[in-house]
């Protein structure tokens, strides 16, 4: 297990290196720069560019950046002078995470039970309602739902605040907007996976043993159906926890997602790079956790085997 984790961490570092390289060159291919402005003279622009080392050729900048990255230094923001990228992530990420964790827990609490219900009552009206809702919400883009929620609860009903996270009510709309899609996807995966398990021979043998439906469903079938559910849940959770760009922007949440959008438009290179690397590392960790959870669920899966 430890050997496997070490191997995965090694590959993770390699992945981060590749992602950092790609991001660096792609970012520099986009025209414009942090100081492109009509108000600054060309001379002033050149001076500032030189101060941040942006006047050097891109390959040189790349090598310099990697040198700092190895020491864990993600650089400082160009736009918000005086803030290091590490500080910005430490400041913004908890905000995104607090909304995201509630959303992902809510998605599990809604999606998985609905999936179980749909599979258990397969072919019933209940099943059809759940399946249709699931298709609807998994195909509805997040920003459409966010805007609808904003309009209905914020503007028409005046029931909930439309921006910020100053009170608990502030969490309601963003959490709803974030969890609708994942709930739908989870309910569909749970239903399909459970139906597959329930059609297997061992379910019939469990019935032949006289096991109660609830034991068959919750003790045996659900655990067997869990692998695809966890496989879906991992990346889904990673995507939500690091902050959804659209939802954070719509609800003016001071999280990492909305901040990244701002930085991209301002060409704040170090922040873009740093955040991307942070995302990558976060997803690598989540996927590793998913692999460990596989072992807990299924005794046949051994991580150390060749």
């Amino acid at each position: 297990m430890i050997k496997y984790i070490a191997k995965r961490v090694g590959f993770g570092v390699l992945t981060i290196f590749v992602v950092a390289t790609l991001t660096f060159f792609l970012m520099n291919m986009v025209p414009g720069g942090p100081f492109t402005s009509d108000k600054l003279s060309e001379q002033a622009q050149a001076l500032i560019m030189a101060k941040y080392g942006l006047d050097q050729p891109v390959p040189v900048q790349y090598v310099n950046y990697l040198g700092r990255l190895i020491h864990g230094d993600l650089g400082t923001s160009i736009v918000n002078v005086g803030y290091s990228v590490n500080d910005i992530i430490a400041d913004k990420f908890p905000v995104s995470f607090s909304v995201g964790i509630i959303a992902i827990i809510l998605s599990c609490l809604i999606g998985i039970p609905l999936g179980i219900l749909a599979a258990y009552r397969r072919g019933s009206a209940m099943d059809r309602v759940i399946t249709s809702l699931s298709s609807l919400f998994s195909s509805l883009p997040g920003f459409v739902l966010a805007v609808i929620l904003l309009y209905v609860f914020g503007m028409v009903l005046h029931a909930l605040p439309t921006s910020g996270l100053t009170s608990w009510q502030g969490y309601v709309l963003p959490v709803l907007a974030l969890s609708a899609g994942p709930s739908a996807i989870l309910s569909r995966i749970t239903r399909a996976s459970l139906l597959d398990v329930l059609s297997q021979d061992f379910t019939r043998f469990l019935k032949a043993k006289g096991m109660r439906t609830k034991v068959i469903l919750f003790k045996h079938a659900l655990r067997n159906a869990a692998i695809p559910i966890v496989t879906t849940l991992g990346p889904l959770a990673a995507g939500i926890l690091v902050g959804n760009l659209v939802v954070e922007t719509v609800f003016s949440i001071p999280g990492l997602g909305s901040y990244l959008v701002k930085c991209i438009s301002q060409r704040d290179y170090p922040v873009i790079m740093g955040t991307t690397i942070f995302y990558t590392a976060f997803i690598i960790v989540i996927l590793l956790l998913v692999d460990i959870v596989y072992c807990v669920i299924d005794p046949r899966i051994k991580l150390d085997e060749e």
Partner: protein
Amino acid sequence: MAKQTEAIRAQGPLSSTRRGQPLLQVRDLRVSVNSRMGSYDVIHGIGFDVVAGEILGIVGESGCGKSITMNAVMGLLPSNVRVTSGKVAFRGIDLVQAGEPLMEQLRGGDLAMVFQDPMTALDPLYPIGDQILEAIERHSGARGNEAREVAIEALRSVGLSEPEKRLSQYPFELSGGMRQRVIIAIALCCRPSLLICDEPTTALDVTIQATVLDLIRELHEQLGNSVVFISHNMGVIASLCDRVTVMYGGQIVERGTVDEIFYQTAHPYTKGLLACMPTLETPREEPLVPIRGTVPDPRSQVVGCPFSSRCSKRMKICMREMPPEFVLEGQHSCACWLCMSEGLSSELLRVPPISAQISKEEQR
């Protein structure tokens, strides 16, 4: 052989006096499948008894309704298949009318079933011990160490070495033969009075098949329970069963003691099943005789005898009317018009109106 038959008849399953009443009585069982095309019958009103302490074989090709029949008895039919009429009396309880809570108590307790493929019949994620203990705890009062003892004893009785160690092993750590033993141990751990075996050896190696069959026979002798053994293998049936029921197209076409079925074979279908089995005396060059054609699609409404389309001795009446079961000698009976003259001399099991016209046609 005749002597043997004589002997069976003397004490016979009629030795039920000694071994008790019929344990399971199936009467006029009809099972139908609902599909998008509408519903159609797959079991056409069959009836049979399982006497306490006997091994009853049910033979037929795939799709003859053997498994459906016994799954109907167990209440394990898939959701689109249901019993439309008939009675399944088990120790005086009608299983067709019994609700799910009662069936759950009976299944795995007094009424057990073993399936075809041991590789997929156990939950892959739980240790063997867990899967046997949950059955024991469900059906007997035993808990904790007491239940563990029962489990170890059950595993030992099916010939598994080191049963204590097996409890913590997972199904994937056992071979197919060992898994089938575990499954039989689970089925028998609560001492069922009826064990249904649905082709339990079909998925196993030939060498393992024999040991599993021996095991079923041994345990049957020890426990004195009744066994219904479903198979398409006439050899297995001959070596194991007391009585045999031959099914075709959702109907029972012939039944009797093993000797009657194998030595006084009456139905052309049974003869066909026997003919396609090689014997030691069969010369190597001689091809086996297959039964031509395939089992009729249950969706097509067959008029007359379901076997008529494949039968080499087909007569006009066979395509018009299903023959009743004619009682032959002893316990032997056969649903074939060819048996009519013989059968008429004795009492009919089911007496449908046989018009004068038909008997005339027969004579011609």
